[in-house]
């Protein structure tokens, strides 16, 4: 089975080469037979990669330690689910997942692209083939997951205990679906540059695929954030870590792309800019892959000690980013930009959105790479951490968030800012009132928190205002308003949901960063600690046993300040003997949208247990906001005009009708 997988991977590489060369040759020479090779090649490439991936998963499930990769990352006592997820919990396996998703998207274009112009489809598939071929070669030469080990060890070294969590089952696949999903818009952009024209089919296609990739990336990032929050034991949700930034940059650029693709689809303006953003977004994905996979982040010198992988990905990076930008420079003049608009218009608002989002992405990029540049140029080492990003990123986001509710209110081509302001007056007044209430009744010193909560309320109410005005609630009879509301295009709901999700996330972030309560004390059994009005009574430590770890659990009774019992919290420290690794399992108890979070330390000199407890008000909103954004994207994805198959079906029906009288 392992050799089958290896063989399938080599075949997939060969198939990717066919896909890279044949369809585009057909498109350039106008040979339809050659163009037709693209779709079956892409599907075959996906099936072969899937077979290869299945072989690796099988090796993991069977604990086949004669495979180096399985031996390094699995253990026979590991629960089955972690044996399976361990497949992509390491470099080689995760790269295989990467190409699996890449070929999946390629085959989806092949399957659903029947109504695309044949030469465009062939070129797109070839560009996908280039990316695929490069990464297959990378895996086969530097990161082969099927390398054997002789003699086979009896027991494996176990998956890193921190990764033994449901988070690993969800986070990387979703993240990669997002990262790699942007390859579709990239391939379309490069194909448009090669062909020298962009037609209506191009815009209709790029938006839903971008939307899908964005949906998955949003999910991947918020899931990863929640995972870090509960797993790492100090209750943070975002660290501005270079690895996180690597996923955040494509998200920012992808969000900009989503909005500019909207302008392009509706008004056929901003064509050249949309192409550039599509290239940029996938470049950020590739850069993220490079940063995470090459080890360059720890230090330029760590990268230099084992450079084979890093240099290979750097070559891929240079080839694709450099190549696509060169192509852009050469060919973008051939594209006709159309659709004039006044600066105060929906288009203008979306351009403003793009300006802020791309600047934010560039800021994150510079912040992430600056220490590397300084180290490479001057041998000095500097750090760029959370304080830098908070100082630069937040001021960039505030004006953008303030402008968000205006966008959907403005008309295309030429909008009326004053009228939009009038319509948003109620939302603005309410948001202001909420901010003032926070200041008066919650905390009189928390000016920034009041502003932040007011801003979140502004986003939420602004999005609602759009729905209210479009359906005419309050100005027409209820049943008419209901009919109008139901009849609104799904994309309107999508926009409102996505913007509301943003507001919810913001509300959660502001609330946790300003109103959280923290207590760090050393406790003996029987003692209490109080955090934000909750009393935690420490019962003591109990020993426990898991399938592949031992643990000691600290049990706490939660009481309200009045003395009423609110249940228990169990926080534990685990020890994984196979890797000799300790981990902490935070005890978390949810009250509505807020959480009590308890983490255990070591006994201090007198034998008392060090306990760190937080009250995290509205913390769940941070990730629920992400889920609402995903819902928004999904709703928008099911909008009639985006269902790519729909128009062709209608056209077929129409042609049948036309035929039937004769």
């Amino acid at each position, binding site marked *: 089975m392992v050799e089958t997988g290896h063989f399938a991977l080599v075949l997939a590489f060969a198939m990717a080469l066919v896909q890279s060369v044949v369809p585009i040759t057909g498109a350039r020479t106008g040979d339809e037979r050659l163009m037709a090779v693209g779709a079956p090649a892409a599907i075959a490439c996906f099936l072969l990669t899937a077979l290869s991936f299945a072989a690796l998963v099988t090796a993991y499930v069977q604990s086949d330690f004669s495979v180096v990769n399985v031996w390094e990352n699995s253990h026979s006592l590991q629960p089955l689910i972690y044996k399976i997820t361990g497949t992509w919990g390491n470099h080689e396996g995760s790269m295989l997942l990467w190409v699996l998703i890449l070929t999946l998207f390629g085959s989806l274009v092949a399957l659903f692209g029947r109504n695309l112009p044949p030469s465009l489809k062939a070129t797109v598939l070839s560009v996908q083939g280039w990316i695929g071929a490069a990464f297959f070669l990378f895996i086969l030469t530097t990161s082969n997951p099927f390398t054997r080990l002789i003699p086979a060890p009896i027991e494996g070294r176990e998956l890193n205990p921190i990764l033994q969590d449901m988070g690993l089952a969800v986070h990387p696949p979703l993240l990669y679906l997002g990262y790699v999903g942007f390859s579709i818009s990239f391939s379309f952009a490069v194909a448009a540059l090669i062909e020298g024209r962009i037609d209506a089919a191009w815009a209709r296609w790029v938006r839903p695929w971008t939307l899908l990739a964005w949906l998955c990336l949003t999910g991947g990032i918020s899931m990863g954030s929640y995972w870090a929050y509960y797993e*790492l034991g100090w209750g943070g949700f975002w660290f501005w870590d270079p690895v996180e930034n690597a996923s955040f940059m494509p998200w920012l650029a992808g969000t900009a792309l989503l909005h500019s693709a909207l302008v392009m689809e509706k008004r056929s303006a901003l064509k050249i800019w949309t192409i550039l953003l599509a290239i940029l977004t996938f470049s950020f994905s590739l850069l993220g892959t490079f940063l995470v996979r090459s080890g360059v982040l720890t230090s330029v010198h760590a990268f230099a000690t084992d450079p084979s992988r890093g240099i290979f990905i750097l070559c891929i990076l240079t080839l694709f980013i450099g190549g696509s930008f060169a192509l852009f420079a050469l060919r973008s003049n051939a594209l006709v930009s159309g659709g004039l608009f006044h600066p105060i218009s929906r288009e203008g608002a979306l351009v403003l959105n793009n300006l802020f989002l791309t600047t934010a992405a560039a*800021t994150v990029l510079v912040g992430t790479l600056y220490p590397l540049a300084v180290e490479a140029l001057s041998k000095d080492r500097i750090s760029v951490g959370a304080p*830098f990003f908070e100082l630069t990123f937040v001021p960039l986001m505030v004006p953008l968030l303030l402008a968000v509710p205006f966008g959907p209110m403005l008309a295309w081509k030429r909008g009326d800012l004053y009228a939009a302001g009038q319509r948003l007056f109620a939302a603005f007044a309410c948001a202001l009132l909420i901010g003032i209430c926070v200041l008066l009744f919650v905390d009189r010193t928390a000016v920034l928190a009041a502003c932040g909560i007011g801003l979140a309320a502004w986003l939420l109410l602004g999005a609602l205002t759009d729905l209210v005005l479009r359906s005419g609630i309050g100005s027409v009879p209820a049943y008419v308003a209901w009919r109008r509301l139901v009849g609104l295009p799904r994309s309107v709901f999508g926009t409102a949901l996505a913007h509301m999700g943003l507001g919810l996330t913001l509300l959660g972030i502001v609330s946790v960063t300003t109103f959280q309560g923290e207590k760090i004390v050393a406790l003996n059994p029987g003692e209490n600690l109080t955090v934000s009005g909750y009393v935690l009574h420490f019962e003591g430590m109990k020993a426990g046993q898991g399938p592949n770890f031992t643990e000691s659990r600290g049990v706490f009774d939660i009481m309200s300040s009045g003395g009423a019992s609110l249940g228990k919290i169990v926080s534990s420290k685990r020890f994984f003997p196979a890797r000799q690794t300790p981990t902490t399992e935070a005890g978390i108890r949810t009250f509505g949208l807020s959480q009590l979070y308890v983490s255990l330390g070591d006994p201090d000199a007198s034998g008392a247990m060090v306990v760190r407890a937080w009250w995290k008000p509205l913390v769940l909103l941070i990730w629920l906001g992400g889920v609402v954004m995903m819902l928004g994207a999904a709703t928008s994805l099911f909008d009639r005009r985006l269902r790519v198959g729909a128009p062709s079906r209608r056209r077929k029906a129409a042609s049948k009708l036309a035929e039937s009288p004769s």
Partner: protein
Amino acid sequence: MRQALQAICLAAALVLSVGVVPALAVRPDEMLSNPALEARARVLSRELRCLVCQNESIDDSNADLAHDLRVLVRDRIKRGDTDQQALAYIVARYGEFVLLKPRFDLRNAALWGTPIVLLLAGGLFMLFGARRRAASPPLSSEEKKELDTILSGRD
């Protein structure tokens, strides 16, 4: 992936401080009795990097070195240093690498300047582009004539 890095950091910390099981970041015995000073120490701790970790502040880190630095910060504050003096003291010993917020100096000009420059350049480009588009040249006499013939032909 972050978790993997975290694990590597943890492993590095473990190797460097043999046999130490990870404790919590800030420990009760480190904390200053004066809550105002302790609050200042916490704020400073968030701006200082744990040198053996991957991008973690000493406030978040479990490593022994972070513990030492936290004690050092509190020691300086207790001796009456201002925040700036305490930071300068630590930078003098551990180098600029320890600062999570790089200094505003010439070498970091490109770092701090990027957002402002990009925003201004992009904004100016947008305005300029919009002006240029709005100010499309008036019709030439031939175009006017052509327009007139089209309009009169419609009547």
